[in-house]
């Protein structure tokens, strides 16, 4: 059986009543557990995956490889903090491998907006030694959700 967190990770729109029925807990137990997860920051928040390409709104996403000089006593955390404070930064990960250190994912309305962020905000941060920006051309899948419409099989009727 899936536990509360797994169910919520898959679909955060499930109501506490639904979650209670699915897990065999009472609704109060669910609400209490969820509140606990939120308080302990095990659940960070609830978001929606939007395919902006299906709307009129322009949007570009870029993945930026960032090389930095780690700082004494702080490692990468301090510099990471200076990067993730920017509203534009969607995701930020510290990477293994040695080719670069941080992966920054940012979204903007236009290519120019993203270029501006890299050139004016990211690159000048003290300790950042290099950036390489990769624009995302097409999204196929995010968080297990597939963007292209999947063709459906012909309707069929079986006597099962």
């Amino acid at each position, binding site marked *: 059986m899936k536990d509360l967190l797994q169910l919520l990770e898959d679909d955060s729109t499930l109501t506490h009543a639904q979650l209670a029925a699915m897990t065999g807990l009472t609704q109060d137990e669910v609400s209490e557990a969820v509140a606990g997860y939120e308080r302990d920051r095990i659940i960070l928040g609830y978001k929606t995956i939007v395919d902006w390409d299906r709307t009129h709104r322009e949007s570009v996403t870029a993945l930026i490889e960032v090389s930095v000089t780690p700082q004494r006593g702080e490692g990468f955390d301090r510099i990471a903090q200076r990067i993730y404070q920017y509203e534009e930064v969607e995701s930020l990960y510290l990477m293994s491998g040695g080719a670069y250190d941080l992966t920054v994912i940012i979204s903007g309305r236009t290519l120019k907006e993203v270029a501006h962020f890299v050139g004016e905000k990211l690159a000048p941060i003290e300790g950042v030694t290099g950036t390489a920006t990769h624009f995302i051309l097409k999204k196929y899948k995010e968080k297990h959700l597939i963007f292209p419409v999947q063709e459906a099989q012909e309707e069929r*009727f079986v006597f099962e």
Partner: protein
Amino acid sequence: MMDYGKIMCRRVQDIQPSGIRKYFDMLQGMEGGISLGIGEPDFVTPWHIRDAGIYSLEKGFTKYTPNAGLSDLRQAIARYLERRFGLGYAPIGQILVTVGGSEGLDLTFRCLLEPGDEVIVPSPSFVCYGPLVSMLHSVPVMVETKAENDFRLTADELRAAITPRTKVLVLPFPNNPTGGVMGRADLEALAEVLRGTDIMVVTDEIYAELTYGQRHVSMAAIPDMYERTVVVNGFSKAYSMTGWRLGYVCGPKPLIAAMTKLHQYAIMSAPTTSQYAAIEALDHGDGDIEAMRDEYDGRRRFLVDGFRSLGLPCFEPLGAFYTFPCIKSTGLTSEQFCDRFLAEQRVAVIPGSAFGPGGEGYVRANYAASMHDLDEVLKRLERFLKSLH
């Protein structure tokens, strides 16, 4: 003018069409209709299994396989049955790969039954047993299972149904449509009745991987029952592979040999692409089974809870992916309930009566559907039940 009513064999004409069909006909073209009627997983076959099928095509594996199935597949089936259910079957001689579990059932009946032989079928159950048996001039003997027994077949019920003509007992558990399961103790009780008889057990274990709470136990694993049991299983439900049409049947060597003979005349061999995909499923699919079962389990609890809180008693189904709520309190027959629920609320569920004696007063609703749909069904059911008062 040809009179086909005179030309076609009497027996096939006497078989009634499935009671399920009309609901799909009604549902078709209905705006906003939701079906909880189809007995099919709503998952696509896991990608690595599909990929194995595709890869076999790329390699040009498009010919017939050995009649009994690919040797690698039969070995994988043997390993799987040992690993998951503690059953020991020899890949050569005791396992036949078939076109779905359905072919396995048909072959088994063909190789066992003489005209006039009786086949005990617990009911309600999947709709195929009666017609397959009748086509062989044999007699299906339907035995009603009861809600108060959790829709299990009891030893007393079995004993009462046995006559000198009884040849076969069908064990359709986990059960479609009730979701009932038979545990080890339940099977032991039946085995006690069967030991020392020549009655063969045909155990349809197509839902064996979909149990909630307790692992499925096969009749073939009960002492003294191995030699009088035929295990029918397949890939459709465990791995969401309904359209691949692949199953298998395991049993005593002479019987499997006879079945293989018939299979090679009627079918030649099961689809080659499907067989390659199935090897991948058996060897690397345990995780898929767990994931799908977990997913079904949440929906199962949700739907059962929903029926109960709307005042419809619902036995807790511990297998398959069906709920079988009791609708007697509405004063409607199963069929009236389903006709009106579909016409008034655009939801298709299937009358329990379509699954044989014992099904009246119940409807089958499957939970192989999205949570969104299940939630909507319960809302519409609430409106429907209110409208009846």
